[in-house]
Structures are given as C-alpha cells and as structure tokens.
C-alpha cells in the first residue's frame, strides 16, 4: 500500500513537473510577421545533413549561407542582414515535421527557403501549418511535381524542374538519338523514381526493363546482379540511373568490375549525376567519359560562364574548404533568387508581400539557369526545362553534339518544346539591384 502511494505521488509529481516545464517556457504571442526586424531577416531551412540525401544535397545550406554572407557584407537587403537558420532533419518525416515547426514557432523565421525532400517536406508543410500561417516556402529543393499544386501548397515555390519533366525530356532525347535501342531504368523506389516512371510514360517511351529498389538497399552484390540481368538485353541498351550519387557510383563501379561499362549507354539522372562526387567516390574517369546527363545550369566547372565564375569567387571567400560543384551552384543560385525576392517585396517586408513579389516579378529574376522561371499569379513553378550533355574524363558536362539545345515542358501531358530562352545578364558583381 505504501509503495502504491509513493508511486502515485511520484506520478503526480512527474505530471506536475512536466506541466510546469511547459508553462514556464511559454512564448508570448507574436504580432504581425515574425522574423523581420529593422536590421535582420531570419530565414529557415530544414534539410538532411547526413545520410545519402545529405551526400547529394548536404552542401546546399552552406552554399546559401555563403551567398547571404556575401550580400550582408555588401549592404544586405534594404539595410537588413539575412540570417539563415539550418536544422537537420536526417531525411525523416517526423523530424522534418518537428524541425519545420521549430523553425516557425521557435526560431520565428520570416520564410523558409530550400526545404528538401518530398516525403519529408510534404508532411512538414502541413504539420507546421505553413498554409494557414502564410509562411512563404521558397525554392524547395526537390523535383517532385506535386509541390507545384497551389491548392495544396499555396505558399510554396518550386525551383528545380520536376523529375517528371526530366524524364519526359529524356524520353525525347533518347528517342531522337538512340533509335532502336532498348531502354532500361534503375530508379529509387520513392517519389523520385515514380515521378520519373510517369514522366517516361508521358514522353511515350517504352521501358524494356524497370527496376525500382528500396532506398539504401543497393549494395555491390545487388548492383552486379542487376547489371548481369540487364546485360542480357541485345544491342547497346540505354541505361538510365535515377538514384542518389552514392548509388549511381556503386552501379558504375559494379559495371567496371563486370566489364560492362561499354555494354550500355549510360544516362545519369540529375540527383545522382554530379561528376565531381562520382569521381570522389571512386568511379574511374574512363567510366565517366561519355556518360550522358541532363542539366538546366551551366556546368559547374565552366568558369567561362559569368554566373559560375562569380559564384566561384563567392565560394572561395565565404565558404572556405568546400569545393565548388553543382550543388554549391544550385544553393547559391537559390540564395540569389531569394535576395531578389526580398528586394522586390520592398522595405515594408511582409509574408504576403514576399509571395506576391515572387509571383509578379519572379520570372524576370536574374539566375544562372539556362531555362526560364515560370512564376506568375497562377504558377508557382520555377525552372521547367533541361539541356543534355556528355561528361568527359575531367567530369565536365559538355553539350551533346556540340550545340546547346534546351527543351521545356510541364509535368503532365503537355508538349516538349525547344526553347529560345536567353537568361538575364549577371547583376554587377553578383549583387542584385532589382526592386
């Protein structure tokens, strides 16, 4: 009996302690739009810093911060400095939901920028009540076409072309250049792969073989088994890899081991196609040579490109120790878009104002992208196209066939069109002056 009482007391105590802890840490209610003071704008990002997703995208937050630091050193935005709060969500939906909620309720950020992952962000968006709180969700780092749905995600703006777009344009490219050869796909079994499969269907390309593997289940053994099976396809099949860089590297290395590199025409999807990372992971330069990849940026090694060379300089100064590659380019580009959006929203900075700024003026923002941005009052979709290139032994992506050919399309059944888009010139010294 005594024991029972003690236990009961203990449980009451623990409840009261818990309650007290919550009450004592109550935050006062926030007025108007949080995250903006006279001197500072707070932005937030929830992203994986670890794991295979971290391998592919881990450099993006650092790159964004580097660009923001550069702008802060050059007067900031309308006199305010930009502060970026980065939270690691390990690519887990539960963590993404709590971290995004933390960004909104605890860190009181003004807007989110560069959120990553579909399974993660789609949950985080609703869990953190981004729609009802009208929190701008700029330039999400994912190619899932669903984020362009403004009914479900009213404050979200995509930037990357969707995986469906990529697959559609890839279909056209394959059909035109590799007529008669079978096409096989090895894809990650999530929105990345599924979106891709749908894109190939929309592009009217029949796949001779389609392998969807559970994330992080590809080992050397499995890759060898897959490739052996695919090597039975006659001719020189086109093999499309829609996976993260570590998996792409594993598959390429398995091909080296089996002496099957020359058996296929390799196409690496955008997520796993960063040549620098592939080489760093041990893929031989001879294997990389000739691999085809799609991109919507200039190649990160092309220092003759004005955007690339400016970003390289910023990276050198503000992101020491990090090698410049496609993910860094992507991060800095998103940051530059963000700065222009903040400028366009005016000195009286509100969340609604920011959203309208991107809608109304976003399509004219300067960016490194070689394809157009499609923001408007009815569209929250960013880039919508790709050009195709071939990697050389140094890991540089050069336009296929010598001339740059850009194609744009949508994520559904729309046509694939050749594009004559020319991008705006780089603002002087990389510092936007738009309004």
């Amino acid at each position, binding site marked *: 009996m005594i024991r029972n009482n*003690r236990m009961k007391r203990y449980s009451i105590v623990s*409840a009261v302690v818990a309650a007290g802890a919550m009450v004592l840490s*109550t*935050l006062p209610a926030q007025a108007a739009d949080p995250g903006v003071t006279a001197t500072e704008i707070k932005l937030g990002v929830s992203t994986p810093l670890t794991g295979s997703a971290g391998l592919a995208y881990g450099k993006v937050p650092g790159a964004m911060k580097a660009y923001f630091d550069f702008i802060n050193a050059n007067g900031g935005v309308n006199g305010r400095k930009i502060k970026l709060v980065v939270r690691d969500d390990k690519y887990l939906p539960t963590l993404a939901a709590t971290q995004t909620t933390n960004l909104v309720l605890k860190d009181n950020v003004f807007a989110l920028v560069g959120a990553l992952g579909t399974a993660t962000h789609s949950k985080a968006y*609703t869990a953190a009540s981004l729609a009802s709180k009208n929190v701008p969700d700029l330039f999400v780092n994912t190619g899932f076409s669903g984020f362009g749905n403004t009914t479900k995600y009213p404050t979200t703006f995509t930037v990357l072309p969707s995986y469906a777009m990529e697959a559609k344009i890839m279909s056209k490219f394959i059909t035109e250049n590799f007529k008669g050869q079978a096409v096989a796909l090895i894809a990650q079994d*999530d929105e990345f792969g599924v979106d891709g499969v749908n894109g190939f269907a929309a592009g009217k390309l029949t796949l001779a073989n389609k392998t969807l593997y559970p*994330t992080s289940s590809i080992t050397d053994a499995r890759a060898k088994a897959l490739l052996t099976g695919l090597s039975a396809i006659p001719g020189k099949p086109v093999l499309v890899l829609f996976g993260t860089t570590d998996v792409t590297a594993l598959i390429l290395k398995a091909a080296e081991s089996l002496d099957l590199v020359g058996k296929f025409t390799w196409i690496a999807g955008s997520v796993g196609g960063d040549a620098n990372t592939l080489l760093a992971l041990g893929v031989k330069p001879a294997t990389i040579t000739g691999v085809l990849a799609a991109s919507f940026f200039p190649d990160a090694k092309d220092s003759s490109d004005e955007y690339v060379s400016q970003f390289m300089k910023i990276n050198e100064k503000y992101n020491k120790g990090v090698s410049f590659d496609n993910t860094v380019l992507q991060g800095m580009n998103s940051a530059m878009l963000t700065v222009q959006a903040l400028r366009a929203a005016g000195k009286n900075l509100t969340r609604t104002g920011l959203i309208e700024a991107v809608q109304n003026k976003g399509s004219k923002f300067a960016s490194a992208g070689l394809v157009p941005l499609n923001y408007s009052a009815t569209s929250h979709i960013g880039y919508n196209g790709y050009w195709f290139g071939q990697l050389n032994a140094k890991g540089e992506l050069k336009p296929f066939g010598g001339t740059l050919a850009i194609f744009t399309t949508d994520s559904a059944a729309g046509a694939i069109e050749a594009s004559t888009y020319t991008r705006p010139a780089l603002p002087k010294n990389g510092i936007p002056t738009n309004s």
Partner: protein
Amino acid sequence: MLNLTSNKKRLLLFILLGWVLLLVGDRVGELRQYQGSFVAMYSLAIASIILLTGYSGQLSLGHSALMAVGAYAGALSINNAHLHPVIALIIATLTAGVFGLILGVAVARLTGPYLAGTTLALAVSLPTLANQFPILGGEQGVVFDVGTPPVRFGEGFSQYKWFFWISSLAALIMIWMISNLLNSRYGRTFRAIRDNQISAALAGINTGRVKVIAFAVSSGVAGLAGGLLVMLISGVSPSAFPLSLSFSLLTGAVVTGVYNLKGVMLGGLVLVAIPEIADSLTTRIGGSEGFTATLPGFLVSALLILAVLFAPNGPGHLIKRKKR
C-alpha cells in the same frame, strides 16, 4: 472492497491529470502544445513497451513496425474510407491489435534473443512493404488529415491545441485502461510469467495464451500511438518508422522504469526534451555541423546508459532507495 477503492482512486487520478493537462494546454503557446502532443504520443508508445517487456517479460524491438500498422490503418480509414478521425484511431488500435495477435501466436515459442531478432527483422522489413502495394502510397505515403478544430471552439483554438487535446485524451484513456488491466488478475498473471515462466506453468497458467494476449494488447496500444504520430506529422510514410524509433521507445521505457507504468509520462517527456535541450545547447555553444547533428543522439544514448547503470528499475526505485 479494497479493489474497488483502488480502482476508483485510479480513475480519479486520471481525471485529475486530464484536468491539469487541459488547463496547461490553455496557457502555453503553440510550440509547447505541439511538443506536448508528442509527449503524450511517446508516453503511450512507451506504455505499450512497458506492458510487453516490463510486465510480461517479452523483449520486442519491433514496436516501430506495430506503430506503422496502426498508422497506415488509421491513415487509410481517413483518406480512403473517409471515416471520422476518432473512428480512424479506433481502427488503428484494433488493426494493430489483431496484427499483434497473429504475430504473438507466431512468436509464442520464442524467447530472449530469438524474439528480439524476429521483432528486429519485422521492424526493418514491414515499412518497406509500403512500396509493394500502391494503395499504401509508396515512399510518399498516405495523408492523415485530422481536420481543423470544430468551429464551436472559436477562432483562437489553434490546430496544435487540437492535436494536444486529441493526443492527451487518447493517451490518458488508453493508459488508464492498461493501468486497470495491470492491476487486475491479468496483471498478476503477466508478472508471474515474467518472473518465472516454468513456475507459472506449474501453477496452472496457460503461459502461451497469456503471452499472446499481452502481445496483442501491447500491439494495439502501439497502433494507437502510431495513429497519433501520423496525425501529428499529417501523413504516414515508411520512413516515419525507422528502426531508431524502436530503440528510442526502449530508451524511454528504461528511463521510465521498465516495470512501472506510473512514470511513463517522464519517458515521453525525455524523448521530446532531449532534442530540445541539445538544440538549445548547440545554439548557445555553436560548433561544427558534425557536433550539432550528433549531439541529440549522444545525449539520448548517454542518458540511456546512465539510466541502466544507476536506475535500472526506474527513477521511482531510485528515489525510494535514497529515501531509506
């Protein structure tokens, strides 16, 4: 006579607890309401572990999978069958419970590491099944939208308070029911089996059947917790139930005191508070990316080890020992 009073006392205690939570929920901000919902959910999940391991002596590493079963059942009820959220949560509980029943029968003959190994295998393989059946939505999963708070609660009633109410109420009711169960004849039977299976069998207890019942009930509770989890993150997907979730629950159970249902809220609080504390620490100290990303894991693990070393039977016993 004694029995009735004890039951009534327990009921009053829970009602009092509910009242306290209600008042607290009114006073705190949205962030704390959201975190409070997680505390309630984790407390419930930990209770399921305590029921199975602490009271009937079966070690399961697969409760994340059981939560997943409940979660998917609940999500499909709301999303595909358009049922009321309360019904969805009940379905989550029942589905997981039935699953646990079947599983319990399958593993009834297993003990110790064999059971642990099987539940471990279950934990890593069950979520991947979501990719096999399109209706389960693959990696992206199924939406679980519990809806906005009823209009009659007024404008100021935030979504997070609604989450808090639902989670706390569900957790309170379920834990109260478990508590009653454990104080009944069944509870004593569980403990008998836990302490010495052979003696229990000699005493005439059908050990196999009781173990299965414990498994089924524990699974049902886990299923409810799973349903609550996906309500809080507004959707279910396989990656929401990694193996590390099972490990976290075990941690919470040990810190609470694996024998003791009473302090279960402390375990839930710990699981939510540690990342919070780690977060505050890293904001204050700063540090490399490696540091900030690994600190929460380090703290949880360190706490677990300290708990095992110094308070293996739970902090309640520790307090008792000190008082002597």
